[in-house]
């Protein structure tokens, strides 16, 4: 009889009645064929695979990871709350040790949503992994978490949320930003002054195949994880690196995804993008599920799979090796980079402009972070958007030192109410969210 060697939890929430709009890639049909494949294969009947019902996340859950403007309700639909709730349900199952690992096959995705969210960008409104990670830290007290984003697009939202956090290792493998949305995620983007090197970006050239992906996993991601020693590994399992994906230009395969999953051994995988809904998703998702459950996946091959045709060129292989070396060097030098980043006690200012392609919103940010050697550092974000909304968000990290807590409260108390629609304090040490 077929039995999973790892007890694996699954949340399957295809949101068959929700779409951004009728012909948008993020539409009702997206997981239909995946569902057909998974059900036809009898996956939910396999002993050791347990299907969970998603939960509904609360405003409180969102407020650990985001400043939603004007508020949570205005920028989310029920579908977002259930999708994030799917990840939360898996987190509960894994952290309560009901299962060894789990996969949330949910939509809509979330990894382009940043800490401040004025609406939809890159098909995402709220960041489902970040909300889950913050939930886990608050409820289960885990300290070090690694988020490995294997979606073909740079996980710029997750990158932004954990930018200043030395306790969350974020690694994104993606198609080179010069050739694909969102246009970021270069090797030099390493995280804020207090967290340099805990954000690693690995841009890959178009045409990267299974060989290239697995090279990066083996030669960069796994050694870094080995050293970081996370309490939990999360995989943002986007599936748009597939050779049939209509939005990207990579040559990854179902077998490759399954092998990647076996190597990475994520505790929790969360579905992100992936828009080759007929040719890729049914096989890739099946491959990932079997790999997580420790079941033979050698038969999970796309009907038209031809490894010879998908082989990557020597020049691509060289480029990938070079990128890997660069990233590894940054990782090795992370402590030095942090030392050089600034004088403790000072504030560093960063200006940014963010475009929300899905909702057509333009946002300007001025971020001010306290340089700190003892924690991630408190910071404030002054954010104004083309919607007319203007807020100030103050963040105190969950592992904040005493000074950063005090400084955070000072920033909040001193902020001038007449200048902003809302001034918000996100104090993660006490798990509170206060608006004045």
């Amino acid at each position: 009889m077929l039995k999973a060697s790892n007890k694996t939890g699954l949340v399957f929430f295809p949101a068959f009645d929700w779409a951004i709009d009728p012909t948008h890639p993020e539409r009702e049909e997206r997981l239909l064929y995946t569902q057909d494949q998974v059900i036809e294969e009898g996956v939910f009947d396999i002993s050791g695979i347990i299907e969970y019902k998603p939960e509904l996340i609360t405003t409180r859950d969102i407020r650990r990871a985001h400043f939603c403007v004007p508020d949570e309700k205005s920028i989310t639909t029920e579908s977002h709350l259930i999708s994030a709730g799917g990840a939360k349900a898996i987190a509960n199952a894994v952290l309560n040790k009901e299962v060894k690992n789990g996969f949330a096959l949910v939509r809509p995705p979330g990894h382009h949503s940043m800490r401040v969210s004025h609406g939809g960008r890159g098909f995402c409104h709220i960041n489902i992994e970040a909300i889950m990670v913050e939930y886990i830290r608050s409820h289960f007290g885990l300290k070090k978490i690694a988020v490995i984003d294997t979606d073909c697009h740079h996980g710029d939202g997750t990158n932004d949320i954990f930018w200043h956090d030395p306790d969350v290792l974020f690694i994104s493998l993606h198609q080179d930003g010069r050739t694909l949305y969102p246009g970021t995620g270069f090797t030099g983007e390493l995280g804020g002054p207090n967290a340099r090197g805990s954000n690693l970006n690995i841009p890959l050239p178009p045409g990267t195949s299974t060989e290239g992906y697995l090279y990066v996993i083996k030669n960069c991601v796994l050694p870094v994880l080995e050293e970081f020693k996370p309490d939990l590994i999360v995989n943002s399992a986007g599936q748009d690196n597939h050779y049939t994906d209509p939005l990207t230009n990579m040559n990854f395969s179902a077998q490759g995804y399954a092998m990647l999953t076996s190597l990475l051994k994520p505790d929790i995988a969360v579905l992100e993008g992936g828009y080759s809904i007929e040719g890729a998703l049914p096989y890739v998702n099946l491959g990932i599920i079997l790999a997580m459950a420790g079941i033979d996946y050698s038969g999970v091959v796309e009907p038209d799979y031809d490894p010879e045709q998908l082989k990557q060129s020597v020049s691509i292989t060289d480029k990938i090796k070079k990128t890997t070396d660069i990233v590894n060097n940054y990782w090795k030098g992370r402590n030095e980079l942090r030392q050089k980043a600034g004088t403790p006690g000072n504030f560093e200012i960063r200006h940014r402009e963010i475009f929300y392609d899905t909702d057509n919103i333009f946002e300007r940010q001025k971020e001010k972070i306290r340089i700190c050697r003892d924690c991630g550092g408190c910071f404030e974000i002054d954010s104004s958007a083309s919607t007319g909304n203007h807020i100030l968000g103050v963040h105190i990290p969950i592992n904040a030192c005493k000074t950063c807590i005090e400084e955070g409260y000072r920033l909040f108390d001193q902020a001038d109410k007449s200048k902003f629609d809302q001034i918000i304090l996100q104090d993660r040490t006490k798990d509170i969210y206060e608006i004045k």
Partner: protein
Amino acid sequence: MIIGIDVGGTHTDAVLLSSSGIEKKIKEATDSTDLFHTILSCFKKLLEGVDPKKIKRIVISTTLTTNAIVQQDMNPVGMVVSAGPGINPEFFRTGDHYYCVSGSINHRGREKAPVNEMEIEDIAKKMKKAGIEYVGVVSKFCVRNPSHEIVIKRILNKHFKKVFLGHHVSGNLNFPRRIATTHLNAAVFSLHKSFFEAIKDSLMQMGLSIPIHILKADGGTMSLESSMLFPGQTVLSGPAASIMGAIPYAPKKQDAIVLDIGGTTTDIAFLVNKTPLLEPMGIQRGRYKSLIRSLQTDSKGIGGDSVVRIKDKELVIGPDRKGPAMAFGGPEPTPTDALVVLGLMPDGNKENAVKGIHQIALELGISDAEAADKIFKKCCSIILKKTFEMIDKINSQPVYTVHEFLEGYKISPRKILLLGGPAPYFAKKIEELYHIKTIAVPESSVANAIGAALARTTCEISLNADTEQGIVTAHEEDFAEPISKTYSEDDLIETAHALLKEKALHSGADPDNIDDVEVVEFQKFNIVRNFSPKGKIFRTKMQIKPGLINGFETILPHP
């Protein structure tokens, strides 16, 4: 008049119903080595002094196939399985003659790799040499496109007595279950056929020439003729018969629990507005999982004859049965003995019952009456605990749309209906302990036979339309028709309804009892490729729900 017979593991119950009520009721011991005689003897007793011409309907529920499975007394079956990409089909091996062959159909029903006819011919030779007479053919995604199964059958047909195809089993996806179900149908076919042909002949000799209906696991009936193709559907019809027998006493527009307390086990089921809940995918019992439509029932190894013992100073009841209660000559104390000791049950030898319970009382250091009460309470709490676990499980079943997630129905039972021998004694205690209105179904010892007698024909249709590929199909019914791009959901529902009625009548339904139609599932998707709409996919499942035939509920006794 109507005859209903339910052959159970220990007892066979039979009733003769007329428009004025229960005319006759019979309870016989089942001779599991000769079910044929058990059934015939029931018929003879029911028909004594009755004009056979007055009998308008016969429904039989048997354990024939269930026994065959349990005793592994089945025909060897050859299985030809075509999987394509995915989980290794070797995992679903049904026996020695199991062949995985090339060919592949994808989730949209498109052919990805052809059948290798030479390979099939070769396998046919091997199976023939091994003496195989019945073969099952199952291809992955055959419910989207059965052409490979049909091609393979054409090659095999001339070599074997009968070839069973996976796409006829169910419109539902689930390849491993389809393999198991197809195998089961093929494996019990000859047993079922010869048994029921013998029954039919004997009934003819008694002057009963009306069609015979067979009870299925979903609480509905099918004609003897349709049962020949799907004998597996008769598995576990026993629990279904009991649940159907409880329906007349279930509250309208409310949920109810049905507990059938037997000798060894208690079956648990639920009624929502007088309709039993169905298993989402099909019968499953332990490792055995199928696509056989079934009422959602579960059983707990506890009943009136369960052995009561003390283990580590704790009272333990069941799950084994060593014989009847001591009050009825059995070897070990049982919950029934507790009932006798408490004076709740007037039958049986009280002296023997006390003897058994006294042992337990001594070990617990309490009085006989206290021990009996403790056993009785524990019995109730074990049954109810399992029931509440089932409710939680049903209420946490995953859903796949935002709408269902937010509006999803949650069952919250307001009434408990008890069936089986000890039912009348349990009702008061359960109500006292759990504050839920609890009644023993009148005539509870033959309610299962009444349920079988009054069950209507049920069936389900799965219809898929794909306007991009220009086809609407219900492969389970061998139905496929071309459609235009403008095919609408109304067209789909109309087609489904017509197919459903046709199927019901074909399965022996009375035309007056086919109107309780329900759309179980409806889904609509736009197919979009390269940002432009290419067509639509519509899917629906429609059923005639399990329920009772019209006009008989009022004749039954009321509590």
